[in-house]
């Protein structure tokens, strides 16, 4: 019944939209020369067709349900004066604009497009350059940020902003965006039920994706590459991450993904390639890791403590310097049926599962955790020898930390 009412409501909206909506054209030689003027004279549900050209405007307030549609990417140049577009009304669509020169401030977060306490917004096909903050959603729900391109030129963390920032926003879809060269590519705080799909967040100063206190979010098919510190996921519950690629987050303090206080998450089918640390886990419980590939990382998985009941199954661990690193003797996590490229056992009964368990924690990684300075002995013959002896008869590493059923062939 509610569904029917909803449909009817939408239909009604649709009809009224078509009955009442006008198109106001904005261009240099038109009657309406500025976007601000266009918004002023427009009535609800009108469309502002912004023609090609450069509009030197900032602090544009969209306070009624309008569609701002750009033709051939008109340039809105903020001349570094401050915020450029602020949406303070429900049902606003912004499409096809090219926004440059957002002002930089140390006291307020100027954004290219800021959505404040609004619903049902749609921001798509927007290109942002020379920005401070890009798209900033503030207490705004049920919207969509689709197919935008954000190219920053951030140099220092302290005077740069985030590409797409969600703050106290719910049910937002962030899809097919390209974010690069800003501080944090995509930043979420207190935002629940967000879906983040098919985005590319690369070459950002700090994190490709950064989120805190945001529950029930879904991330799929995103690529996070070459970010200063990778991806940080903190203090959140019931997160799902599938089919993402974390690559080349390489540096002394970089992670593919940093998990801190994350509970009940699902992490599957992701690829972690060439990161200093593939996943850094701290205080995270009941997480299911399945079908992930860890390729050529320094540490594939670094477990720092207070991590219980996590399960790792059917993952590929390929050519990492250290597969798993642990800093305690206690283990409550399960490793089962993973493929380990370092596994040297055999499979006599040919069932695809090795007959000898694999111990993923090397003695060296245990020692390094205890005394970090010992890392200078990396790749020395002595370390190889004691690693071998530990492998044969474990003394220091947790007894039950093993994969009893290591796969003989790599998971596809």
């Amino acid at each position, binding site marked *: 019944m509610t569904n029917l009412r909803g449909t009817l409501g939408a239909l009604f909206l649709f009809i009224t939209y078509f009955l009442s909506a006008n198109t106001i054209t904005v261009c240099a030689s038109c009657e309406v020369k500025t976007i601000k003027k266009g918004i002023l004279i427009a009535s609800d549900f009108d469309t502002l067709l912004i023609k090609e050209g450069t509009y030197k405007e900032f602090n544009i307030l969209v306070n009624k349900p309008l569609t701002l549609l750009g033709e051939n990417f008109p340039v809105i140049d903020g001349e570094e004066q401050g915020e450029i577009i602020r949406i303070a009304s429900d049902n606003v669509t912004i499409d096809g604009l090219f926004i440059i020169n957002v002002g930089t401030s140390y006291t307020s977060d100027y954004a290219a497009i800021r959505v404040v306490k609004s619903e049902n917004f749609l921001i798509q096909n927007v290109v942002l350059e020379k920005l401070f903050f890009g798209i900033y959603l503030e207490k705004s729900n049920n919207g969509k940020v689709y197919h935008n391109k954000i190219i920053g030129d951030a140099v220092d963390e302290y005077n740069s902003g985030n590409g797409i920032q969600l703050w106290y926003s719910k049910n937002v879809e962030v899809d097919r965006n390209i974010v690069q060269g800003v501080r944090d590519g995509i930043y979420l705080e207190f935002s629940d039920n967000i879906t983040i799909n098919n985005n590319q967040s690369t070459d950002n100063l700090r994190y490709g994706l950064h989120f805190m206190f945001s529950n029930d979010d879904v991330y799929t098919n995103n690529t996070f590459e070459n970010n200063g510190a990778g991806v940080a996921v903190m203090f959140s519950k019931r997160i799902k991450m599938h089919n993402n690629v974390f690559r080349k987050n*390489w*540096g*002394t303090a*970089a992670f593919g993904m940093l998990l801190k206080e994350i509970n009940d998450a699902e992490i599957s089918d992701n690829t972690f390639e060439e990161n*200093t640390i593939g996943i850094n886990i701290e205080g995270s419980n009941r997480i299911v890791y399945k079908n992930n590939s860890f390729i050529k990382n*320094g*540490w594939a998985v670094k477990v720092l403590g207070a991590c219980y009941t996590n399960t790792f199954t059917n993952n590929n661990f390929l050519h990492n*310097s250290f597969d798993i690193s642990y800093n305690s003797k206690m283990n409550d996590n399960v490793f089962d049926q993973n493929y380990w490229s370092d596994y040297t056992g055999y499979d006599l009964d040919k069932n695809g599962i090795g007959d000898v368990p694999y111990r993923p924690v090397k003695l060296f990684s245990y*020692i390094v955790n*205890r*005394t*970090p*300075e*010992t*890392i*200078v*002995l*990396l*790749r*020395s*013959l*002595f*370390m190889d*020898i004691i690693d071998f002896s530990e492998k044969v008869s474990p003394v220091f590493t947790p007894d039950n930390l093993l994969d009893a059923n290591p796969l003989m062939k790599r998971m596809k």
Partner: protein
Amino acid sequence: MLKILKYSFYDLMRSRWSYVYFLFYLALGFVLLFLNNDVSKAVITLMNVIIVLVPLIGTIFGVMYYYNSKEFTELLLAQPIKRSSIFLGQYFGVAGSLTLSLVLGLGIPFVLYGLLKSDAIFDFTLLLVTGAFLTMIFTGLAFNIALSNENKIKGFGYAVLVWLFLAVVYDGLFLMSLIIFEEYPLDGFSLAATMFNPIDLSRTLILLKLDISALLGYTGAVFKQFFGTNSGLIISILMLSLWTVLPIWRLTFMAKRKDF
């Protein structure tokens, strides 16, 4: 001296050991590149081989050569030739031919696989330079040991022991001291300890040049600050040179006084 150097060199060529050594590195280089086709990755694998095998081969070869050519040496001693030139000539003959085998054996496959166009050329050059230094150092040590021990078994024993100490035991002691004194700031100590072992020094030098150095964390950063700069590199090369010069100096010193 040059004449004796030439004799030793040709002697080794004739005995085919240089060729075997050369072919071994050639095969190693080709197989490595064939298997992973990435020059910079192959440099890492090669490093593991170089820091273990090169010193071992240098040691064994040096001792073997000295004992083998003892009669020739005694014959030369009867001639009016300076003692230092006899021993130095032999030493440089052995060390030179080993270095040449190493450099050519590894150089040829890498050049053929497009090293000159790759950015790994500096790392690779460093690898070869440290390899050459290690050969010189360990051949020198081997000559010293052989000169001081008439007994072949003893000589071989000591030579292998020296290799074992520098390649394995030293790191063990290093590790123990790091763990025992973990409460103290150990950066300076680990830097010094690395400096005093040519194998560790070579390993660290190469590791820091490769991007794997990010794994080294804080300690790595301290190391990088030292080795990464030009002065650090120069100090390391000086240290390696010192390691080369000291055995040679002792060799001439001992050779002058030894009663044959």
